[in-house]
């Protein structure tokens, strides 16, 4: 007894000592990081936690969430591919998060397949995933059908906005690049006007026109023995070919811009409602 009490007092401080890297501490810290939106650090912490407890589906879910919200979905997808989940019961939470990760990471088709084929999701979850996948793939007709199949009782968030966007997508009309070039053959710049770049079209017409006119004027005055006549002809030829090619490109740029714009709008609408 005489020895034991001092011995106990000696080791008492150690009792209060904690392992900051043990499971409980790390778990609390990881949650704090996730909540305070420090996603990269949170992901790192969850990676370590999963290392400590390999078979915890909640941890996995939260790790995938950290990667998704931290705008690094590819890392989450990479981790998923390493996990051997075949022999385990499928967790609805984990698979739900995985489908969101697929949508976020640019794999809407895979998300749709997962939702419809894996028998993990409930019907409202399936319908929502299919709708988001349709929209992200810009399959607007299909999206319209998918949206109609979601009953109002499902409480889909921002439903009217989604509806509006789908209608906008269905109405979208793209330009034909070959038509733009064809229009530019008789009238330089016309193809650009058709492609929505009417100011560039006018400039094209002006550049080609002025150079051709100057060349013709010089040839009229001085015959073929004229330096500036040939220079202007060269410019005119280059600018004319540039105009044919430019009309094609203008139509493509117009289309790309429209598609990208709609893509941005879709992502801005869909990604936040995934949570």
């Amino acid at each position: 007894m005489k020895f034991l009490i001092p011995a106990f007092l000696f080791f008492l401080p150690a009792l209060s000592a904690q392992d900051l890297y043990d499971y409980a501490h790390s778990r609390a810290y990881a949650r704090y990081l996730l909540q305070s939106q420090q996603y990269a650090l949170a992901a790192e912490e969850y990676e370590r936690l999963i290392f400590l407890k390999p078979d915890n589906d909640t941890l996995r879910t939260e790790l995938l969430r950290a990667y998704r919200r931290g705008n690094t979905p590819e890392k989450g997808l990479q981790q998923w591919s390493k996990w051997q989940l075949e022999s385990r019961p499928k967790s609805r939470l984990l698979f739900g998060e995985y489908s969101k990760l697929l949508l976020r990471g640019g794999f809407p088709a895979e998300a749709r397949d997962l939702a419809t084929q894996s028998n993990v999701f409930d019907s409202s979850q399936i319908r929502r995933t299919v709708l988001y996948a349709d929209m992200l793939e810009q399959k607007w007709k299909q999206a319209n059908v998918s949206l109609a199949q979601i009953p109002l009782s499902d409480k889909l968030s921002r439903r009217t906005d989604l509806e509006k966007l789908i209608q906008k997508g269905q109405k979208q009309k793209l330009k034909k690049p070959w038509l733009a070039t064809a229009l530019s053959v008789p009238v330089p710049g016309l193809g650009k006007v058709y492609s929505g770049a009417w100011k560039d079209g006018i400039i094209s017409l002006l550049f080609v026109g002025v150079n051709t006119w100057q060349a013709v004027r010089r040839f009229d005055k001085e015959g073929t023995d004229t330096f500036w006549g040939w220079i202007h002809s060269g410019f005119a030829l280059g600018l004319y070919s540039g105009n044919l090619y430019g009309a094609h490109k203008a139509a493509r740029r117009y289309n790309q811009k429209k598609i990208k714009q709609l893509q941005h709008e879709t992502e801005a609408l869909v990604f936040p409602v995934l949570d």
Partner: protein
Amino acid sequence: MKRRLLFFLCWISASGWLGGQNLEQTLAFARAQYEAGNTLTALKTYQRVLFFGGNVHRDESQSQLATLHASLGEFDRAAFYYDLIYQSAGTDSLRYEALFHKTASLMLQQQPKKALLELLALPKNLPEPWQSRKRLYLGAAHFSIREFELARQDLLPLFGAEDSAQKAEFEKLFRHAERVARKSPKTARLLSMFFPGAGQFYAGDVKNGLNSLLLNGLLGYWFVATGINYSFIDAGATVTPWLFRYYGGGIRKAGEILEAKQEERLKKTFQKVLQTIEVER
């Protein structure tokens, strides 16, 4: 029974001490990583210490986090911690230290006005050495915004009362700075308007002055030659757009060059001012 219980408690406490990594060990690790230059690891470890330690080691964690973020060039994040320290530090010296660090990082980011705001929040009289440091930073910030007289008054007390070579040099540099700042971009532009390149020469840029002079001379020659060989209508149509671009460009650039040169010279002058202070101290 009692004896067994005590035994058990001892065993538990001992094992707790032996295994795992506690706050102190984590702090030691953070320090070691910092010393080793592993910035990112140190940063993460100090964040952990701050989270779990609460007020214990708070000052150290915060100041180290600020320094580490600043070293990574993440000045906003660093400023966040400097502000925290300034508000919560236990000692005045630590608070001032944080404030000077924030000021320094603002000066490095070329934001003298923000630096000035920080410095003016300090009490008027500080104990040494804080007062001297405050004067130094105030002088630098005032000099940056071209308040030379204020800067001179800030910095002058850093020299001894008696006249010295350094003090004389200091005064000379300030007169030089005033002279440099007096040149105006407007004058440079006007000069270039009357004679292409003149504004550039005035700013002290011989290369660009010659460049502008030559280019405009050639364009002028081309204008006259086209006018004589073809017609002046042709000359107007072909050469005027170019003349407009390069003559107009010369005028605009004269002003810009002057401003850039001025900034460069003033910076170099203040570096020399700093040298005189360094030698004096």
